[in-house]
């Protein structure tokens, strides 16, 4: 079943057309990759899909509902979570609060002006369970600022997962990671794919081809081709580009 379908997306900033015509469908329970050279419009595409920008034309249908142009918080509450390429965390607080704030059970309590979020053991346990998924349970009560770069990346993913989403968008999760951390991240995504639908932008071709069920290649603001990793290896466009040598 197609969980997420974007059709004919267009975006321009002033006179500059960044996205010409983006059409991609994401099947439920799969890992969908988005790749393309620098400046191809991958991140802008993500911004459209998650509501950071509204598209100038086109539709985005998620679980049978058109979400194009909805504000980000509405989209987030429908079950679409994302991480950021440039890390975006709540830095003044402890690690666990980043996750806590994203839990639906916590959001249901935010109207309680005299309640106490950190006294609720069930909430804390739920947040710890999410941290455990990404291997951060031991640092739950450390300052967010004190996390290493790789752990901050993992926390980014944990925040996205805490929202109990139906689909998770990851924007270049390996960016800046070393070989070891990249390997750990791939293992994490393999574990997550049994529970979530995942869409990721990635530069690291070896990483992406090893994980994705289908990949859309974006260039010049369009999806120039799409297919399984094996199909793409055989594709003449991909073969002609430098992408192939990277694999």
């Amino acid at each position, binding site marked *: 079943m197609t969980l997420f379908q974007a059709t004919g997306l267009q975006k321009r900033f002033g006179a500059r057309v960044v996205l010409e015509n983006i059409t991609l469908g994401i099947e439920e329970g799969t890992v969908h990759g988005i790749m393309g050279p620098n400046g191809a419009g991958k991140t802008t595409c993500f911004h459209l899909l*998650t509501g*950071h920008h509204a598209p100038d034309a086109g539709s985005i249908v998620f679980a049978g509902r058109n979400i194009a142009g909805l*504000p*980000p*918080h*509405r989209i*987030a*509450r429908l079950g679409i*979570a*994302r991480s*950021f390429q440039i890390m*975006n*965390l*709540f*830095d*003044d*607080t*402890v690690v666990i*609060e980043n996750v*806590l*704030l*994203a839990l639906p059970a*916590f*959001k249901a*309590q*935010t*109207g*309680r*002006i*005299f*309640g*106490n*979020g*950190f*006294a609720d053991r069930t909430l804390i346990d739920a947040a710890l369970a999410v941290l455990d998924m990404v291997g951060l349970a031991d640092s739950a009560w450390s300052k967010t600022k004190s996390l*290493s770069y790789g752990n901050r990346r993992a926390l980014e993913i944990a*925040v996205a997962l805490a*929202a109990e989403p139906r689909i998770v968008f990851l924007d270049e999760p390996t960016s800046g990671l*070393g070989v070891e951390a990249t390997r750990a991240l791939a293992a994490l995504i393999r574990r997550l794919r049994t529970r979530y639908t995942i869409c990721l932008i990635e530069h690291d071709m070896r990483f992406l081809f090893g994980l994705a069920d289908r990949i859309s290649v974006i260039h010049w603001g369009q999806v120039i081709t799409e297919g399984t990793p094996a199909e793409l290896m055989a594709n003449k466009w991909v073969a002609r580009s430098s992408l192939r040598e990277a694999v």
Partner: protein
Amino acid sequence: MINLSDIPPKGGSPFILPMAAFLVLLVAAPFLVARFGLYHYLAIEIAIWIIFAMGFNLLFGYTGLHSFGHGAYLGIGAYAFGLFQHNVSISLWGGLGAALLAAMVAGGFVALFLSHRRGIYFALLSIAFGQIFWFSSIKLHRITGGEDGLLGIPRPPLQIGDATLALADNRIFYGFVAALAALVVIGLWRVVNSPFGRVLQAIRQNEMRARFVGYDVWRWKWLAFTISATFAGLAGALLAMAQNSAYPDVMSLHQSGLVVMMVLVGGGLVNFWGPILGVLLYFLAREVLGGLTETWLLWYGLMFVVMVMVRPEGLAGLIGTARRREAPVPPARIVETTP
């Protein structure tokens, strides 16, 4: 470095040492001011400004929205209280209710325009609206009495059930104001540590992340502004009672700047108790330095400059650092080396 979003060791429980110290100080204040040869009115002023500054810091420190026009809501509370006494009936609860409602409505209206903004744009717009209210209070002569202000505002007696307590005496009135200040501070302590308060702090830390986690940031900013304006309205009503009058001066940019300065000097950006320290420091400086020299504001201003330059976390930050120096040095952190 201490931080507003540190999780208090006892959660949001108000049974903590600083709270006890604050309450003891509130009770002892009338005796302390008498002992140092100061007048009771000073204690009233301090308690009123504590309400104002603490409510203001919910917006300024906790939500990270820098309003420089908050004096307007103090003034609106004062005028609303006075107008209620003059035109509706002499009633304490009625007047306080009118002041809270007026400040809430005014704050809620202004917040409609401000909540889309951040940073410098938010600050400038808040000043602009503050000036509009201040100007109106001068020009709407028939309602506000213009520059002469609204005079002869009574202090209606406090009625609880059948019991009546006259508030005309400054010592008794202080008791009333102090009780409200205690309620406000305990209430705010709960609020900032509640899920509600944690979301406000999340918005300060990273508005974009809060939005993508699913919070309607606009609505939260609107709420924070409106709530803090309502606290200012309460302080304003008490100020009108204290002075038996309401003047446009209360709304001026000067007052709005004063509360910002108190919060910054006290350390409201890093500590819940910062605004209280700031209020205390200001009034003590006014009384002590003011007794020595007419140019005390110059010295206070210089102190502010030095504070911002060397210790931007304010008085609370200073105390925090001193306390950590006494504490044992934590074991050296293992430094990760990257190849």
